[in-house]
């Protein structure tokens, strides 16, 4: 008898409590303090407001986009400036030898960085081809690493971002 009553009592109890988790609009004001967990990279960078940061990848330690498809990213790698600069130019079908001393210089991370520019049809790593493309690149050797900043996009868009590119590159610091 008691068990039957119990079973009958459980039904409305389950029905009453079986409303679903809410998806109604809700106001959020909760914050938390910054911690060491928020220091996510060994580089400190000030990104221009026109750009947006997108997911990093294996070879892109700090990956950004501008306009619709323009890309600019920092890579921390190895190798020398000359061979990397020549590899970049090859992506524009340009096979000439790079004379590093003749490239434009910029003080970045306490070292002399070089700036590389190219225009034409870009054939990238992922089978991506961009007609009328522009390259604005920066290469600097520091603390045994080769730091590169590479901007790829439509020629006019890259030219328009030159000032942002220079200020971005100058802002890079080791933490």
């Amino acid at each position, binding site marked *: 008898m008691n068990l039957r009553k119990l079973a009958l009592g459980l039904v409305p109890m389950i029905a009453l409590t079986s409303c679903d988790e809410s998806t109604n609009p809700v106001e959020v004001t909760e914050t938390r303090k910054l911690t060491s*967990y928020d220091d996510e990279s060994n580089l400190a960078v000030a990104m221009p*407001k026109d750009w947006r940061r997108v997911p*990093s990848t294996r070879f892109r330690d700090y990956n950004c986009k501008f306009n619709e498809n323009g890309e600019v990213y920092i890579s921390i790698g190895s190798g020398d400036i000359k061979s990397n600069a020549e590899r970049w130019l090859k992506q524009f079908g340009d096979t000439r030898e790079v004379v590093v001393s003749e490239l434009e210089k910029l003080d970045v991370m306490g070292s002399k960085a070089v700036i590389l520019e190219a225009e034409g049809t870009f054939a990238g790593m992922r089978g991506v081809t961009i007609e009328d493309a522009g390259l604005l690149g920066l290469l600097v050797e520091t603390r045994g690493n080769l730091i590169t900043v590479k901007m790829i996009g439509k020629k006019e868009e890259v030219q328009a971002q030159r000032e942002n590119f220079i200020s971005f590159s100058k802002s890079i610091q080791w933490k």
Partner: protein
Amino acid sequence: MSKKPTNPVTKIFALIGGFQVAIVCMVLLLILTWLSTLEQTGPGGLYWTLEKYFSFGAYYVRPTLYGHDLPIYLPGGYWVCALFTLNLLFGGVMRMRKGWKHAPILVSHLSMLMLMIGGAMTYHQSREAYMLLAVGETGDSAFSLTELSIEIAEVKDGQKQEPLVISSELLAGVRGKPTRQREFLLPNFPFDATVSEYHIHNELFPVQGIAPEGVNVVDGYYAKPIEPTGAEETNLSACIITLKERSSGKLHKLLLFEGVSHDLTVTIEDKIYGLRLHGEIWNTPFRVRLDDSRGEKHPGTGMAMIYESDVTVLDENGSAERKFKIEMNKPLRYKDLTFYQTSWNDAGPKVESGFTVKTNPSDQWPKYAIYTCGVALFVHFIIKLFGFVSNSIARSKNEQ
């Protein structure tokens, strides 16, 4: 024999506090525990099996045994425990016969009641997160491996500001339910946010050439949902967050992926905002420095066999407060926090210790409850034994 209650309220108390209910609850808990133990070894894993069987939202359970759904439904473990707690309160404490002879039984029931309430407090009040430290490093926060939040922070001159937290609790209604969405009103920012397409486990791909059909490409990336693994901490969630500017109604869509270890950004009204989906971050009230870490691995495997760590608790100024040695089954208990070492790794350039950091107001309740119950039952058995022996002696004297 006790007289039957006539008042309806008393009847309900009598029913809930009845012996039959106690038996049914205990049998159900036994069955639920047995079935969930079997099920957690399957693809569901421990986290999801506990959610399925014992969470607040699990009103009923359809058990799965060896990959097959059983043709039965059982009440959820949380609600069986709740009923059992009421049963203990009404039947084992309130309706129980009073008197010094029954005191040990009353105490044992009270201690079981304490155990059940402690379990409920653990479920609702405890928090668990993970802190990973290399030797020499100092930690001031821990992060959850299973409860994810979305954080939004303004970035000023490359410096992240204090983030706003959309907690896992607020995201629970859309998590793993990709057809649902939820709007979050953010009065501290010039925009509001809507979270949608929240899948539990995903792979993130950059678009190479033409994107596969049916995927939602955001800024050159798309997330491909895959079957969640049983180990919840290895799943990588992804969701779409759409920010709507309040002044203009302009929309900004971002694809957040748990596997991305930095903020994604968007510029709204000339300010940069960083957004990220990751384990809830918990600021610890003190800092912990890992001074040394020692361990051994099972031969031929990467699994740690034994480990221990020397740590120093630091105050806000970085001065040493206390030194501790954390060993397996010997956690550090300090200022309402418990640090259990749960991993050890010497594969990298520096030895690392992983700590599960837990706060639980009823941390020691089960121990106290079991001790109290044990002592009470021991006293009860002694009283009964004494009574039995006394009666036996008296009976044998009478027979003589």
